[in-house]
C-alpha cells in the first residue's frame, strides 16, 4: 500500500511500483489539471509541488511521493476564490491555450513560496523548463511579477499550500 497526501487529502493505493505520479494523478484520481506534452521531462506541463519543491510528475514514481505532500493545480484555489497567482495569470492575459498553465502556475508557486521577491532572471530560471508555445512568455513574466505584488500586499494573508506550512 502506498500512502499519498494530495491536495491535503489522504489516499491509499495498491500500486505495482512502475506508475508515475502523473499516471496516478490523471488516471487513478482523475486530477486531469496536471498535463504532459512530452512525457519525458522536457516541457514542464506536469509540474506539481512535492514537499515544497517543483517536480516533474512524469518522471516521478508515485511511490517516491510516499509520505510526502503533493499539491497540484486543483489544490490551489480556495473554493471559488482563486489563488493570487491564478488570479494574476488570468488578469494579465497570460493564458492562451491554457495547456501549459497548470505547470507554469505550479512552478511559479514553488518559486514564490521559496523566494517572495524574485528578480526577473530568477523568475526566468524557475520557469525555464516550462514551454509555452502560444503566448511567448512576456505576459507570463508580467503575471508572476504581479503575483509577487499581490502576495506581498496581502499583509500576512498570503495563501500557503499545506506543504509549505
Amino acid at each position: 500500500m502506498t500512502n499519498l497526501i494530495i491536495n491535503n487529502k489522504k489516499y491509499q493505493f495498491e500500486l505495482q511500483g512502475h506508475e508515475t505520479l502523473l499516471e496516478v494523478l490523471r488516471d487513478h484520481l482523475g486530477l486531469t489539471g496536471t498535463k504532459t506534452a512530452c512525457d519525458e521531462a522536457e516541457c514542464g506541463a506536469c509540474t506539481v509541488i512535492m514537499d515544497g519543491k517543483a517536480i516533474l510528475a512524469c518522471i516521478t514514481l508515485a511511490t517516491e511521493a510516499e509520505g510526502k505532500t503533493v499539491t497540484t493545480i486543483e489544490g490551489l484555489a480556495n473554493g471559488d476564490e482563486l489563488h493570487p497567482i491564478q488570479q494574476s495569470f488570468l488578469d494579465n492575459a497570460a493564458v492562451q491555450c491554457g495547456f501549459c498553465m497548470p505547470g507554469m502556475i505550479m512552478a511559479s508557486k514553488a518559486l514564490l513560496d521559496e523566494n517572495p521577491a524574485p528578480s526577473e532572471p530568477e523568475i526566468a530560471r524557475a520557469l525555464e523548463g516550462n514551454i509555452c508555445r502560444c503566448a511567448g512568455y512576456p505576459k507570463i513574466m508580467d503575471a508572476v511579477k504581479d503575483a509577487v505584488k499581490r502576495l506581498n500586499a496581502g499583509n500576512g494573508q498570503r495563501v500557503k499550500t499545506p506543504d509549505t506550512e
Partner: protein
Amino acid sequence: MTTSNKKFLDPVGKSVPRIDGKGMVTGQAKYVYDMKLPNMLVGKMLRSPHAHAKIINIDTSKAEKLPGVKAIITAKDTHKIKFGSNEFFFPHTIDQMALESEKVRYIGDEIGAVAAVDEKTAEQALKLIDVEYEILPAVFDPVEAMKPGAPQIHTAMSNLGVILPTNFGNVERGLKESDYIREDTFYCPSAAHTCLETHVCLGQWEEFSDKITLWVSTQAPFKIREALAKTLKMNLNNIRVIKLSVGGGFGGKLEMLPMDFAACLLSKKAGGMPVKICYSREEEFSYSRRKHNMIYKLKSGVKKDGTLMAITGEVIADGGAYCSYGPTVMAAAMMRIFMVYQIKNFRISGFRVYTNNPISGAIRGFGGVQSGFAVESHMDLLARGIGLDPVEFRLKNITTPNMTTTNKMIISSNGLKECIGKSTKSAEWTKKYNNPDYGKKGILRRGIGIGIAADVMGSKMYKSHESAGGIIKIEEDGSVYFFTGAADTGQGANTALSQIAAQALGVSFDRIRCKAADTEITPFDTGSFASRVTFISGNAALLTGKDAKRQILEVVAEEHKINIDDLDIIREEVVNTKENLVLMNFDKALELCYSFDYGRQIIGRGTYNPTTTPIDFRTGEGNVSGSYGFEAQIAEVEVNTETGEVKVIKIWDAHDVGKAINPKSVESQIEGSLAMGLGYTFSENLQFKNGRIVNPNFTNYRVPRISAIPPMESIFIETNDPHGPFGAKGMGEAALLPTAAAIANAIHDAIGIRLKDLPFTPNKIIKALKEQEGQL
C-alpha cells in the same frame, strides 16, 4: 435576480479576462486529451517503416488473436476514398487515403490501426501484424525529385504536384529599365508546430442510430466532419464533431488525419466502444504536418531612386508525400508580396514538389514566413545596393490605402506607412542604422533591421464560400447564449467574439455564455485559419447581436408605441434615443418579451461571407480577403563576434489591427508570434535523414524558452477598417512573418554579413565572420 453584474459594459476595446480563463488557471478546462469514457479503448496507428514501398500483404491474424484486442482495421475495411485539403481549387491534389492499401510514401504512412483495452496491448498488437513490402527507390531532395527519371511518388500526377506560375507585367522590360539588379538565394528549413496538446481524438459509433461522434483537438471541426463523411461514406448529419479546449493549433490541426478516421471506424468495428487515439510527442513531430522547407531564388531590379521595377524568380518547396494544404501555402507565399509592395512586373514560378519526406502542410503564416524571410532580406539588399536607407526604400514602394494591387487585391484601410513610421521612431532608427559610432566597435556589435509584412483575414480554401454564422438565444431571465462555429484554439476567439456579440447587443460581456464549435449545435464555420476568425466570425457575431437586439426592441416599440428606429440598447438599458430617455433595463425588457402579452422568444441570427474572389491559381490574381492587415517590425541585435551568438536587444512591432477588440489578447498574439519567429530564426529546424525526422523531441528541436525572449514593444495602429466588426482586422499570423528578415537585416547592419540560410546558429555566424576576414 439579474444574470449580469454589469462589470464589462461596452466590452469592445477592453482587455476583459478570457471567457474560459478561470477553467484554464484552475486545471478544470477540459481538453480531448483529458477525456475518458466508459469502456474506452486505446487506438494506435500501424505505420510504414519505409519511405517508399509497395504493400504486398498485410496479415493481421496473429494480432486479432491477442487478448484485449477489440478491433483492427486496414484499407480492406474502408471505401478507399481519397481526402485532401484543397477540394475546391485543386481537386487533383486530393491524394491521400485514410489507410493506404497499395503503396506507402513516407515513413509513418498509415496502413492500419488497432484498438485494444490498453496502450500496452495495442502496441503489442501492432507488432504482431505482418506487413510484406516491396521497397521502392525513394527521393528526399525536392530538387532531385523534379528531375526526369526521379522515383515517381504518385501515379496520378508527376512529382511536380503543384505548379503556380504567378505572372504580371513585363519582367524583362522592368529589369532592363532598372539601374541595379541582384540575385539572391534563400534557404528556409522545415519546422514544427509543437502545439502543447498533441493530436488527439476520441471516436464513438452509436449502433442504434449509426451515428458517429468525434471529439477532436482541432482548428476546423466542420472541415473534419466533411472529410469523415466523404471517407466513411456517411451523411454529414450522421457525424458530429465536437471541439473542447484545444492546446494550440498553429495550422497543424486544420484537417482530418488518418487517426480521426481510424478512431471512428475502430469504434464501429468494436461494436460502439469509444476509441481514443493520442499522439506521443515523437508521433506529433514525425507524423502530423510540418512547415514546407523552401528554396527562394529571387532576382529583382530597382531604379536609383529606389523604385522597385521587377521581381522574378523561382520557389521550390518540399511537399513531402502528400499535398495537404500545399497549394494554398504556395499561393499565400506569393500573394503576400503584392499586399506589401506595389510591383507591376512580377514573375515567380512556384513548385511544390512531392518527396518521400513527411507531409508538409499549413503552419502559421501559410508560406508567408518563408516568403517573409526571403523577400524582406532581398529587399534590404536591393536598398543597400543603391545606397538607400532600407526604411526609405520601403516607404517608396509600399501599398497604400484604397488601392487595387497588381494581382487585383482590393485594399481598403492600410496602416503600413504608419506602422513603419511609428516603429522606426520608437526604435530610434535614424540614430542607430548604419551608424559606425553606434555599437560597431569591439567584440559586441550592434545592428538594427526592419521587416514588413501583410496578412489576409480569410481565404477560400476547401469550399466555394467561407461563411461564418452565429445564433443568440436570450432566456427570460436575461441569460444570453451565444453560439458560434468558430474554433477557439487558445487564441481567444470565444472571448473576442463574445465581446463583439455583447457590444452589438448592448449588454455587459459577463452576460454571454459562449457555446462553440460543435457541428451538431453551432452554426457552420470554415475554421480557424488565415487570421479569419475575428474578421469573418466576428462580423457574424456582430450581425447576430444586432438581430437579437432588434427583436427585443420590436417588443418594446410595440408596447410603448414608439418607432423602433428611435430605440436602442446601450449599456444594458433600453433607451429612447430621440428623447434621450431610459425606458427600462435589459432584464425588464426581457421580462416584457416573455410576458403574458408577448411570449416572444429572442433568437438572433447572423451570417457573414466576405465579398472575395477566389485566387486564380494560373496567374495569382484575386481579391482573396475581405480586408488586409499590415505591420512593420524592427529588431535590434548585438552580435558577439567571438562566439557567434546573437542577442536580440529589443523588437518593436507596429501592427495595423484595425481595432483591438481585446488589447491584451492582441498583444499576446503579437508576442506569441514573435516568439515563434525568434525560434525559427535561431534554433528551430526540423531535420530529416532518408525521410526520417531525426530530432522529434524538445531536447533536439529547440523551441524558445522564457529566457530567450527579448523585450518586445507592440504598437497598435487602429485604422478602423470599414469592413471589420467595429473596425477590427485579423492579426494572428502577420507578426511572425518578418521576424527572421528583420533579424537578418540587423545582423547585416551589425557585422556586414548577410545570412541567407536559416536558422542563424552561432556556428554559421562564426563561419561567415571567418570568410569575411579571409576576404579582407
